[in-house]
């Protein structure tokens, strides 16, 4: 079979060029960041007034002080805590709902218009009501995050399960799989890419939910902090809050990317592999 071993597409992929490609991407990204921040640093005070757009060096100093002498960790844990709690709740229940409704055509037909209607409510409009119901502590934020994450996860799980290739389930049936085995060994792994996409998409929503909750009524959190600094015309403080939020999303995404690489390593195209072959 040596003839076939040669025309094998990518079983023997060498690591070396992938690494150098990776570092090329990394370096270019770094350069991009330096250019943007460099221009910002230069433009602030010369092209625009520092009062409006602050300055990277000022923001860095602010964050440094905030972390070591201020209430950074308290604000962070408030926002991050409600975000994670709502995200976890939304993911678990969204998955469950997606699985259950994809298994029951009747239930999904009955519930479909209601789900669309509920998902159509702008969450900003719900936030004040949640304050009335649940106060101004973390609970209303958790629930707001939940209402956003739940639908993203639910719809992706549902679509993932519904789009599992007929060939895969037919074959398992022919090989003698029962309903339980069919679900665990075929449907779930086949829809995992969809589910993961849902989880990744829902992270920014989780942050949006937490921040909106804090904007409406709160006594703590990054959103509350940003609002307060903005109301004091302290653009440096506002920018610092925004940059911390960006870090949260990027950090969570990278964590998920590691998990995804592990769980979905059977997928043919990593981002780097496709980019390279073009």
């Amino acid at each position, binding site marked *: 079979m040596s003839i*076939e071993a040669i*025309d*094998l597409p990518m079983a023997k992929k060498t690591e070396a060029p992938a690494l150098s490609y990776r570092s090329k991407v990394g370096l270019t990204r770094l350069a991009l960041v330096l250019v943007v921040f460099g221009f910002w640093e230069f433009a602030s005070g010369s092209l625009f007034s520092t009062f409006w757009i602050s300055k990277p060096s000022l923001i860095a100093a602010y964050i440094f002080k905030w972390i070591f002498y201020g209430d950074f960790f308290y604000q962070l844990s408030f926002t991050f805590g409600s975000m994670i709690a709502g995200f976890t709740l939304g993911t678990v229940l969204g998955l469950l709902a997606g699985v259950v409704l994809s298994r029951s055509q009747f239930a999904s037909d009955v519930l479909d218009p209601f789900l669309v209607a509920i998902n159509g409510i702008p969450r900003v409009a719900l936030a004040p009501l949640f304050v009335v119901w649940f106060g101004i502590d973390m609970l209303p934020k958790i629930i707001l995050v939940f209402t956003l994450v739940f639908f993203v996860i639910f719809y992706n799980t549902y679509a993932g399960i519904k789009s599992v290739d007929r060939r895969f389930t037919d*074959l398992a049936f*022919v*090989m003698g799989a029962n309903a339980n085995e069919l679900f665990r060994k075929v449907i779930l*792994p086949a829809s*995992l890419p969809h589910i993961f996409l849902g989880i990744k998409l829902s992270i920014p929503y989780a942050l949006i939910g937490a921040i909106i909750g804090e904007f409406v009524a709160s006594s703590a959190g990054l959103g509350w902090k940003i609002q307060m600094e903005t109301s004091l015309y302290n653009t440096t403080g506002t920018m610092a809050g925004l940059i911390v939020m960006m870090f949260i999303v990027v950090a969570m995404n990278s964590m998920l990317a590691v998990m995804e690489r592990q769980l979905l390593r*059977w997928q043919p195209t990593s981002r780097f592999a496709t980019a390279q072959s073009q």
Partner: protein
Amino acid sequence: MSQSADLVTSSSVLQDRHSILKFTDVIKKYSSERGSIVALNGISLDVKEGEFLTIVGPSGCGKSTLLNILVGLETPSAGAVVLDGANTVDRKAVGYVMQNDNLYPWRTLRENVEFPLELRNIPAAERRRISARYLEKVHLADFADAYPYELSGGMRQRGNIIRALCFSPRILVMDEPFGPLDAQTRLLLQNLLLGLWAEEKKTVLFITHDLHEAIALGDRLVVLTARPGRIKSSHPIDIPRPRNIRHLHENAAYRALLSKVGDELAEEIQVQAGVH
């Protein structure tokens, strides 16, 4: 129904064997709002234990429907399919190789081969032993831990074949398994299949639209008509085994059958295409 000279060949030996699979007057109709279509119009077929039966027919004649009925993916509108004397075909007794490459992409080659063994609750160590033996047989031992996307089409189809064989099914059902492969890989896999078949002595039901392949592999060849599918003719293939597929064209019986059945098949293909 041709009956050739009294040679000691595979087909005459088969007459002593008992029947393992029997289709009796199988009819399949599909009804929709625009009327009903008859896909299979009374198929009766008797497959002997250990027989390698090939079925050819014009595309769209209901070949795949016949197999889907056998494996339980579709139910016949009338008639019966009896495997091993049982009226309901036990799914776990059938190994099925589909036309499309159908390894599960989220499983490694080894895990794919072991899938039917898992469904039969065979312990992990035993599964491992069986899969290793079969991977070795089709020269894929080195690729046991590769994912399907890392394998060539021919390798994947070899994986499909041993996945359908490794749990010792009573019958191996193959639906145009080599259709999408290039000519060289096809030849390689045809030889490999004949080798496996000689070792395992399985009953094989093999569907193809390639007449060369049908004659080269089978003990007996059944020709289906254009839709609605009926059995047009059945021919024993009196070519001694082991066969070397690359040199079959030198065999007179092969050439005779090829030209005879080729004419029959061409007729049906014209009917199916609406050319009279």
